């Protein structure tokens, strides 16, 4: 799977390389997020991250069970899928920590990708959502982070005004950089680059699983990030939203 489909350059200097995501990494995320193998003890139902709410839905009713049956039936040279969840079983502690998808045998993971790209195209739809948010930000406007946070909180009484907002900020982790994209429907997309100036490649995409987290606080999370040593001075914000909500 190629993400993004084409190289994208951003106003803050970020470059997203159009690279193929390694298939094991891709399937790990497809199974974990839209197909709900999220390993959350409180996860409710088949779609804990609520990918079915998006328009169009990334996963539709009944797809999960059908896809799991197909994946469970894959066999290549005696090897099969090692995720117990596809067979309706609860994982053991060792299985929980094993991240089976990341070590899946080549023939099995390739067949798995074909299954999730076929009649029930969870994989391509998942990729489509990611492509959508990065393209929206790619035409965005660079603003100082203080202006971003101040404008964000000014809508604390009117969170509906945050519909349509997407934003991105770059976090520096030693030599590495991580670009985190947020969208108003709880979508989070990360791209990583190994050193400053190198093109960034896709890392993950998930929906903030807590439906109860207020939108302002969700977008304020761009003030933090994973143990970053430095955060960029600026954020890139969806242009149409920023210009429509000028203060």
């Amino acid at each position: 799977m190629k993400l993004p489909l084409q190289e994208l350059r951003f106003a803050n200097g970020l470059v997203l390389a159009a690279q193929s995501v390694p298939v094991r990494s891709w399937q790990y995320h497809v199974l974990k997020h839209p197909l709900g193998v999220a390993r959350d003890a409180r996860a409710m139902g088949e779609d804990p991250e609520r990918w079915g709410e998006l328009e169009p839905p990334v996963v539709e009713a009944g797809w999960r069970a059908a896809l799991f049956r197909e994946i469970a039936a894959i066999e290549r040279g005696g090897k099969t899928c090692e995720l117990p969840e596809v067979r309706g079983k609860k994982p053991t502690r060792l299985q929980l920590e094993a991240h089976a998808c990341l070590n899946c045998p080549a023939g099995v993971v390739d067949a798995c990708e074909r299954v999730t790209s076929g009649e029930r195209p969870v994989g391509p739809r998942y990729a489509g959502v990611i492509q959508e948010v990065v393209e929206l930000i790619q035409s965005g406007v660079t603003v100082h982070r203080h202006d971003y946070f101040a404008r964000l909180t000014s809508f604390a009484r009117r969170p509906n005004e945050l519909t349509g907002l997407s934003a991105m900020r770059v976090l520096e982790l030693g030599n590495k950089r991580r670009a985190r994209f947020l969208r108003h429907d709880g979508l989070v997309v990360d791209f990583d680059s190994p050193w400053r100036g190198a093109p960034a490649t896709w890392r993950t995409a998930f929906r903030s699983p807590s439906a109860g987290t207020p939108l302002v606080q969700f977008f304020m999370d761009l003030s933090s990030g994973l143990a970053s040593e430095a955060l960029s001075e600026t954020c890139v914000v969806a242009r149409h939203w920023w210009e429509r909500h000028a203060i």
Partner: protein
Amino acid sequence: MQSNRYRDELREVTRAGLRGLERAAAEPGGAEPLLLCNVLERVGDLHRLRERAPAWVDAFLVGVSESEIAAVISTYRNEVAGWPVPEGLIRIEEDGPGDDGLGFAVRRRDQVESAIRTLTDWSLQRRRAPVQLTGWAELLGALREWDEAIAKALDRASAENLLSIRIAIAEPRGWLARLGEPDARSPEDVGEPLAPAGLGSFGRPDDAVLQRYLSTGELKAYVEGYASRSPEFASMLAETIETLWDIGELRGAIVPRLWLKRHLAAAQLLNYAPPAIPLAAADEETALEGHRIDLGAIPGLSGAVDAELEIGRGMVTLRVHSEAGVVRRVQAGTTVTDAAGDGGDWIAECPLPSGSLRLRIEDRSGSVFEEELELHEAP
């Protein structure tokens, strides 16, 4: 240095957020839950940074009703119910598969902790114990339950990784330190009113209040006032302070230790564990790290002042933080400082004494904090 950078970033982000909230607060309408949550969290963050909130915040919070506070507590209660609880052990490393939604939840947990701090202050200013707020005990119970569930999945380093810059305001005995520690008190013990009647509406300090007192020395009047009326509580408090100090978890906050000293009429106050390298190391290339003792909030002064000691290479450095215009003079041993340094901190350095160390901090109103500290190696 990283901690200072994180504090600076958090301060700037928080103040930027409050500028936007001031606009929102000025719009018509009451203190709706989403607005009030944001205000409580940002104000709590500032307090944990030892800074004052802008003046508009006081006016805003004065006008908030108990029903609006109850709505906020209910909002938080509902949100906590949706936070993920991972199955299995998760280690958060830079190159790992990722923290996904758990990182958001951990940071939200810390933001809610800030809101709890502000709610506690709001309540006490109205001469009410926090536990008397509708839904308070249920919210604290839900948070404790989530903390205990998370403790089975996250190690401390991973949790700190997820907090990111918010680690700069993590208190020594804050919620993060409680991960995995079972609460010995049953929920029914939290905030039980003091009997017999006639001793005011303040109940027994609950976990949130005690935690702040032990971490930072705040809420001194409430906790120590209750201890003065309840021998049973005073005994429990003394035992808690001594136990935490013995296991190295009360290096912060001089206030509880001062209370204990008065309570026990003990002369010995502080001791510290020697660093891994002897203080008298001769090898200049083996740079010694100063052993740091966070004294926390300094009592009895007119403004918010906190201090820390650094011990190393035969010297003791007293570093005092406060807003501009509060402190007038700082003294450690025989070294007196009459002006703040370039970074705004007041610093006094003196040779490490063989016996007691005299500390004195004077503010511009004439109030003085003065104490003799015994410094010696821990047994």
